[in-house]
């Protein structure tokens, strides 16, 4: 007899009384099963003998429905959910080894803990013109940095909802990156590393970088949701994808919706979807959000990230881009592992860069 038949009656009751309700079934199927007296997956297995035809006969479901119900009941099998766990020690090891996508602005990479992390959602928000799309273009390009230079050596997916992706601009940024890496290689003193870098730069051109950026253009919210729904499969087919950019999430959600409750629901569903792509495929997800004016009860109105309070919980790390004394500033406002911090950045012809300290003679 299998050991699972010796169970604590207390927990068995508990298990049995909830299992059927916890299966993802259509309400009509569920109620038919309940009327027929089935309460748990164990009942399926014991009474229906795991056979769809028996289950269909006993419960009055069609054979197809019975098949689906059995499939749902068998999903994962006994103890499978528990095996999905990873110990914190493994997670720590992963966090240490995980390559990060750099923004090419050292100050910003520092406050982000070395760059944009995979397995999480990083959101950039800010006013128009502050450099959100530039930031996205930059990270898409730098995702291709070879491993010899400490990069992720991967491809990127760019989901464009606003039509703001400019291939020429991406070309500039990519050429600047190639140039920069060449210079790095030339300055390297360690001969072994230099050979390694040289080999990595073989055939590494701006055209190659651009061919590794997969662009999806979404004209409306339905298209956006459809892309996200199939993105998991796309990444499975293109295993080198290390970064997914959505520029921007806010655009369609801010104009296509009358019903705010529906918007919240769709947004949270979308977030769960993105999160599951980020963790299951171990890719970095970057989202872009706009800002909106929020009236205050006392004092002047403030600029706050758009899409409301409930969406604020959606991202793992939130970076607000803004202007401060004619300088661009990135401010990490939310992160589970990093303290709140600011970094200055600038946008050059070659992409996002550090703010150069002015030499004394310039002042």
């Amino acid at each position, binding site marked *: 007899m299998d050991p699972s038949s010796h169970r604590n009656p207390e927990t068995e009751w508990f298990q049995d009384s909830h299992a059927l309700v916890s299966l993802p079934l259509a309400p009509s199927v569920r109620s038919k099963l309940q009327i027929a007296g089935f309460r748990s997956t164990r009942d399926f297995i014991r009474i229906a003998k795991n056979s769809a035809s028996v289950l269909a006969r006993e419960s009055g479901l069609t054979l197809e429905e019975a098949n689906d119900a059995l499939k749902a009941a068998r999903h994962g099998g006994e103890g499978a959910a528990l095996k999905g*766990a990873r110990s914190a020690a493994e997670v720590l090891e992963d966090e240490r080894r995980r390559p990060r996508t750099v923004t090419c602005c050292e100050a910003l990479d520092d406050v982000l803990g070395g760059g944009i992390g995979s397995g999480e959602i990083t959101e950039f928000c800010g006013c128009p013109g502050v450099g959100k799309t530039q930031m996205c273009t930059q990270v898409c390009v730098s995702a291709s940095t070879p491993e010899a230079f400490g990069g992720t050596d991967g491809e990127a997916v760019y989901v464009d909802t606003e039509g703001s992706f400019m291939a020429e601009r991406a070309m500039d940024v990519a050429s600047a990156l190639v140039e920069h890496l060449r210079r790095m290689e030339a300055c390297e003193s360690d001969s072994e590393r230099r050979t390694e870098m040289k080999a990595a730069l073989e055939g590494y051109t701006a055209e190659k970088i651009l061919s590794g950026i997969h662009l999806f253009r979404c004209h409306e919210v339905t298209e956006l949701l459809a892309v996200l729904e199939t993105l998991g499969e796309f990444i499975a087919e293109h295993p080198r994808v290390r970064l997914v950019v959505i520029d921007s999430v806010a655009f369609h959600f801010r104009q296509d919706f009358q019903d705010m409750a529906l918007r919240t629901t769709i947004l949270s569903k979308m977030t769960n979807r993105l999160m599951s792509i980020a963790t299951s495929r171990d890719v970095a997800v970057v989202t872009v959000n706009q800002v909106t004016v929020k009236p205050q009860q006392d004092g002047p109105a403030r600029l706050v990230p758009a899409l409301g309070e*409930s969406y604020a919980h959606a991202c793992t790390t939130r970076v607000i881009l803004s202007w401060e004394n004619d300088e661009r500033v990135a401010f990490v406002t939310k992160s589970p592992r990093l303290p709140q911090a600011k970094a200055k950045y600038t946008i050059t012809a070659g992409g996002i860069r550090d703010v150069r300290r002015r030499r004394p003679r310039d002042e």
Partner: protein
Amino acid sequence: MGADATVTASTARDDGVVDVSANRAIADGTADDARGRTRVEIERALRWGVDMGDFLCGCEKETGKGGWDKGCWGGGRGDGGGARRRALREACVAETLANAVNGTSIERGLSMLEILPTGCDAIDGLLGGGLRQGEVIEIVGPSASGKTQVCLSAAASFAALGHRVVYVDTGGGFSATRIKQFHRGFLTEDADEGEVARNLRQTLDLIAVHRCHDVFSLLHLLSQLAEEASEDDNNPDRATMGLLVIDSLSSLLSPLLTKAHHQGYTIMATVAATLRGLATTRKTAALYTNHTVSAGQDALADDHGSNLKPALGARWTSVPHRRIRFAKIPGTVWFSASVAYGVTTKPARYRIGSNNIHGETER
């Protein structure tokens, strides 16, 4: 007398089982299957409209819905049907009696429960010492108010004390690096490094991280955790599950809670029952987070000038034993924590440091 009754009932059941579903039970060869069958039949009988009281008292009156007899008993209302019904009734009584507990044992059970610290003095003070085993505690607060930080700190604290922690991560918020920092913060500055590293290893190994992105996989996990309990009870080598953390529960449930999704509230109720059942049967402290949503323009602002309400709202209020509310105090680095539901105590203030969360109880 009670003992006698039980013996009689179980004997009767054993006989009854063979009688009830003779063919199947014999064919299956296991009493367990027969018991499952008995339960399904009881369930089915009740669905056909047989009054539970009549059923248990054994009144042989006409139910008015002949379907029960005809549908379930196969033949007419002969002697066979009566005997079967008696056997079922006794099986039902026996199961119910087996689950009865008296006050003394409940009290003994309660006195054995421990209160364990969250690793944050201010929150512990608010909760009267920490998290009690068997209790469900909710943290509600806006984004970036320290919810995940307190979850991580509590996980580190429980694991450092030798309890197993199950951490369900829905938003990529789990950071092992942060656990390591909190762990270092629990120990004194001058602790031996080797000792710290050994202890850290044990702590990290005790934390199991699960990533869940939809409510059905959460329910699946919870039911398997409950099932695992019985196996653990017989294994003294394994540390008991001291803490279950779900960060965040509301992000899994909120996509379901709309008018369009008519199963939403059923599933929410299932999660509530499963969570409380798990906390009680496994003597586990369950800590979960709930995010906030805007309460609308007309709602009254709270002390900190924000008009937010919990995402899992009025229908959920009765689920946690205690609900604590976090908020950022504007213009400072401090956060405030207060009990929103449960035994009320004085509100506390806390701030998040590099390796701890520390409080300052008086203002």
